[in-house]
């Protein structure tokens, strides 16, 4: 969270994340350039600039595949959530790596012509009517432009300026960039030479990403379809039982066709808030209460349980919901309250409290 523009708010976790990422990039390039020619005769017979462009090109593809796998992996298994924390730096480094690949391509294939490099890039292959001969460079340029736009707008300033829904919609164009990269690689390197490693990286990566995203999407769709049961009196819905929530954790419910609602248990009280973090739409209900604040698992944005507002001087807010208890059942009114509405946590009756020590399912439904 920040009040004013800062290029990057560094902390120890981000530094470690970036250090590991940069070390990985360095090691990959080193291995590709030093060990690659020893292992592969095809690589040994090429010039160093070509080896460099292949090293950075394949690395950009690998990084894009990894960065696109982090989201669904975190949805499928919570142990991958820490990778989400600094995913934007990963994305920016992917764009820089792809740009480095493009730089070497322009410097090698298009430098010795009297035509300007970019003009030569767009005019050297005009086989638009051919399938296998289609100018694959265009797909690479398209992907690079998208990656560059996403890298430039990745900062929280743009997230705040554009609003999270618009920002998220723009950043979903990375999927089209990925599709373009696959076509770029297939029409270019895979047709040009039999490169098993690159085929495995591109086609295997495509298959893996499709499976991961479709599994994660299926889970989300199933969760959406299994809406909370309606209580006898409208508009209340039953989101679960008090005993299902561990101290400091939440259960998630929703009305049919509505957005998800997280009900947190903390210090003998229950609070219902929107499950959507105002920062990047992260799943707040999968977070926990830290020093009295509801904390998003993605980037640590915090909100007060009583009014859904971030503690001063921060200004982020999420919606609150009315809730009540019937016996040990938790009922929520799915109609959100206006932003900033203060609703004191609903006290849990003393006879229901001992169950807190033994939640039935670890705190989520």
């Amino acid at each position, binding site marked *: 969270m920040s009040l004013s523009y800062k290029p990057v708010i560094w902390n120890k976790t981000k530094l470690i994340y970036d250090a590991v990422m940069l070390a990985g990039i360095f090691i990959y390039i080193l291995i590709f350039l030093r060990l690659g020619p020893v292992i592969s005769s095809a690589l040994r017979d090429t010039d160093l600039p070509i080896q460099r462009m292949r090293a950075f090109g394949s690395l950009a593809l690998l990084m894009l595949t990894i960065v696109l796998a982090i989201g669904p992996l975190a949805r499928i298994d919570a142990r991958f959530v820490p990778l989400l924390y600094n995913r934007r730096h990963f994305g920016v480094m992917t764009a820089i790596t792809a740009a480095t690949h493009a730089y070497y391509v322009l410097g090698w294939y298009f430098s010795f012509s009297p035509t300007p490099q970019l003009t030569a890039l767009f005019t050297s292959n005009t086989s638009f009517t051919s*399938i*296998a001969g289609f100018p694959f460079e265009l797909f690479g340029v398209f992907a690079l432009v998208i990656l560059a736009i996403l890298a430039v707008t990745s900062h929280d300033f743009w997230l705040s300026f554009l609003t999270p829904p618009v920002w998220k919609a723009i950043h*979903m164009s990375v*999927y089209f960039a990925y599709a373009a990269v696959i076509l770029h690689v297939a029409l270019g390197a895979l047709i040009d030479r039999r490169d098993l490693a690159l085929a495995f990286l591109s086609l295997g990566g495509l298959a893996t990403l499709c499976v991961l995203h479709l599994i994660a*999407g299926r889970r*989300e769709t199933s969760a959406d379809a299994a809406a909370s049961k309606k209580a006898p009196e409208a508009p209340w819905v039953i989101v679960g039982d008090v005993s299902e929530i561990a101290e400091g954790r939440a259960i998630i419910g929703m009305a049919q066709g509505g957005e998800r609602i997280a009900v947190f248990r903390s210090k003998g009280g229950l609070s219902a808030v929107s499950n959507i973090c105002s920062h990047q*739409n992260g799943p707040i209900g999968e977070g926990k209460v830290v020093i009295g604040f509801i904390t998003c698992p993605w980037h640590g944005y915090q909100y007060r349980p009583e009014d859904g507002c971030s503690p001063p001087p921060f200004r982020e807010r999420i919606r609150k919901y009315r809730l009540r208890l019937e016996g040990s059942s938790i009922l929520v009114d799915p109609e959100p309250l206006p932003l900033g509405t203060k609703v004191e946590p609903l006290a849990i009756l003393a006879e229901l409290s001992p169950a807190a020590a033994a939640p039935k399912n670890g705190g989520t439904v």
Partner: protein
Amino acid sequence: MQRRHRRAHTVIWTGIAVVIPIMLIVIFASVPKLPADAPAVRLDATATQGDKQP
């Protein structure tokens, strides 16, 4: 994540999982192949190297 974003993700990835493999099959199937009676043209390093420059 908002409900409509979840739906958009599912639609996009279903599209990618269906369209891209089909496109790849079409691309690789349309790569020109040499006819069976094509002459044995040598394009390997030995044949194309030519005289070395002084």
